[in-house]
C-alpha cells in the first residue's frame, strides 16, 4: 500500500498550480482580444504569473481594467501574485491577458495554445477555446 502511494506520488505528482475555465474572445487578424482564466494555487506559498507566450499574436501583456468616474480604461500589470491556498480570477472588467495584433482571425470555438510562466511552478501549457 505504501509502495503504491509512493509510486503514485512519483508518477502523478499533485499539480501546484492549476488553470481553470480558460476562454478568449473571438477577434479579427491585426486586432486585439482578451484571454481569461482562473488560477488555483494549491501550495502553501505564493506564486507569480509573470509572462504569457503564444504564437497567436505579436504581443501579449497582462492588463487590468479600471474606472475613474464614468470613464474606463486599461493599464498594464507586470505580474499577478497568487497567494498560497487561494485562487485568482482573470475576468471581464478586471484583470485579463491582452492579446495584441493577432496574426490570424480567431473565430467562435477556435482553439489556441498559450504557455503561462510562473516563478515557482514554471511553465504551464493551456489550450483555450474562443467563445462569444
Amino acid at each position, binding site marked *: 500500500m505504501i509502495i503504491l502511494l509512493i509510486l503514485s506520488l512519483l508518477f502523478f505528482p499533485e499539480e501546484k498550480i492549476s488553470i481553470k475555465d480558460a476562454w478568449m*474572445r*473571438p*477577434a*479579427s487578424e491585426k*486586432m*486585439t*482580444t*482578451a484571454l481569461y482564466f482562473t488560477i488555483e494555487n494549491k501550495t502553501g506559498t505564493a506564486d507569480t504569473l509573470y509572462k504569457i507566450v503564444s504564437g497567436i499574436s*505579436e*504581443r501579449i501583456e497582462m*492588463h487590468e*481594467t479600471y*474606472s*475613474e468616474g*464614468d*470613464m*474606463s*480604461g*486599461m*493599464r*498594464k500589470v507586470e505580474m499577478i501574485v497568487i497567494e498560497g491556498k487561494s485562487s485568482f480570477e482573470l475576468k*471581464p*472588467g478586471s484583470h*485579463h491577458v*491582452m*492579446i*495584441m*495584433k493577432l496574426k490570424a*482571425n480567431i*473565430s*467562435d470555438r477556435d482553439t489556441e495554445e498559450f504557455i503561462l510562466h510562473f516563478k515557482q511552478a514554471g511553465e504551464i501549457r493551456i489550450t483555450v477555446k474562443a467563445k*462569444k
Partner: protein
Amino acid sequence: MIIKILVSTILILSLSSCKKELPLDKDLTKKSYELINQDSVEAIFPSIINGSITVIGFIFTNCPDICPMTINNMYLVEKKLNDEGINDIKFAAISFDPERDTPEMLKKFAHTRELNFRNWILLTGEKPVINDLLKRFDVKAVKTDEYFDDNGEQSYSMMHTDRISLIDQNGILKKNYKGSTLNLDEIINDIKYLKD
C-alpha cells in the same frame, strides 16, 4: 360631490405619478453629422436612425475588454427583444477611434460578433466630426499607453466613457447606461415604455 372630486383628483394624481419618465430629453435632430457605415456608405446621423427606437454603443474595435462587453450586452438586448417578438429596434455602434476603425475594420468586427446588419449599423467618420458627435453625447475618449512597435507602427489603448444610450423614435436622447455592466431588464423595460 366634493368627496367624489377629491377622490378623482387623488386618483388622477397618483396614476400620473406612476407614469414612468425617462431622465433625458435631448433633441439630437438639431444638428447632423456626416458619418460612414461599415460598407463605406455615407450615413447622416441622426437621420439614419430617425423613426426607430435606437440603442447606441460607443466603442473602439481594438478594445479587448470593456467594448466587447458593451456590444455583447446590446446583442443580448436584441436577442431578448426578438424572443418577445420585438424586431424593430435599431442598434448602432459608433467608433471613437476613427484613425483605426475604418469601415473595413468595423465590418470585420461585426462579422466576428455575428451582428445582424438588418438591425445593426456600425459608424465611423472624420475625426473632427466624430469628436463633435461625442461632445453631443457627452462621451469622452483619450488615447493611453501609446508606443511604437518594432515595425514603427503606432499602438495605443483608450480610456473612454463606458456608455450605451437610448434614443426614441423622434431622435431624442432619453437615457444613458453604463455599457459594460448594462442591466438588460432595465433597458428592455425602457424600450417597451418608448414603444407604448
